[in-house]
């Protein structure tokens, strides 16, 4: 079968570098539009909650950040596994690029959750199954990042990182189902595909807009970081040298310093 396009066209670092660079501004545009819309609906349209007052407004960033922390872990493990199984260098580089962003969203899920837990539960932190498994997720990201930076040979580091990422991925369903499997202080899922949402539609709208914004953010930053990683790794390739030459600012914007 002949495909109308080449499936692995963008698996070449040089082509990926160009494509990612072209996509970054669009990702930022989507982030800005959906972020502003989400915050507007969340702060100026969604009503004050009857039981939690305005403290509940943390949900608009807490739930999207927690979703991103889990999704990005699976994305990282997926590309790390592909990079290992098929000896695909670019896939391993993308896995490396995803990790810091995933770790940041995990931190934000914990941080915003803590700032929500204090006024509603009376404690910044409890050793509840949901909170504990999310904290383990942060340690798994940290483990992946430390192991790839501890091994000098980049491909060996990629494989060791992939092993950590794949084994750690069992934690993601544990986080997701923790509120069902254990009797947790943390509330159950706010949104599910099988039941009606347990909140006002404006609240749900804001949360979903913020989720799209966070997705776009993650794409933008991961593309930016992958471009840096690709250049660092391919630093002996002619295309990378050409990219560096092309990256020079035009004379006009450099002012009179010549």
């Amino acid at each position: 079968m002949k495909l109308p396009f080449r499936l692995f066209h963008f698996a070449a670092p040089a082509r990926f570098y160009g494509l990612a660079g072209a996509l970054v501004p669009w990702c930022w545009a989507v982030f800005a539009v959906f972020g502003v819309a989400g915050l507007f609906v969340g702060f100026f349209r969604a009503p004050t909650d009857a039981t939690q007052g305005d403290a509940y407004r943390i949900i608009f960033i807490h739930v999207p950040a927690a979703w991103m922390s889990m999704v990005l872990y699976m994305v990282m493990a997926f590309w790390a596994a592909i990079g290992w199984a098929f000896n695909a260098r670019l896939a391993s580089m993308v896995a490396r690029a995803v990790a810091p962003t995933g770790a940041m969203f995990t931190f934000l899920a914990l941080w915003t959750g803590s700032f929500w837990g204090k006024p509603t539960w009376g404690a910044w932190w409890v050793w509840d199954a949901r909170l504990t498994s999310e904290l383990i997720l942060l340690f798994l990201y940290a483990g992946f990042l430390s192991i790839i930076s501890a091994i000098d040979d980049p491909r060996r580091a990629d494989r060791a990182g992939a092993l950590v990422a794949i084994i750690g991925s069992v934690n993601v369903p544990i986080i997701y189902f923790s509120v069902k499997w254990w009797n947790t202080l943390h509330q159950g899922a706010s949104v599910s595909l099988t039941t009606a949402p347990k909140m006002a539609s404006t609240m749900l709208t804001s949360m979903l807009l913020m989720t799209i914004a966070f997705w776009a953010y993650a794409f933008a930053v991961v593309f930016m970081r992958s471009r840096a990683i690709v250049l660092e790794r391919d630093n002996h390739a002619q295309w990378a040298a050409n990219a560096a030459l092309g990256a020079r600012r035009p004379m006009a914007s450099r002012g009179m310093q010549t």
Partner: protein
Amino acid sequence: MIWNSASEFFAMGGYGLYVWGAYGVTLACLLVEPVLARARHRQALRALGAEDPA
């Protein structure tokens, strides 16, 4: 309209510290991370011989 004044908005019904503490740190993280990623990219370009990379 939910809020009658700007101060009511910032007070968040008495939960201002928690709401803005959560949002403030999130905003700070989302501002710092792209700056770091951009710096790393520029560093990679400089290492390849680019002067004053855009």
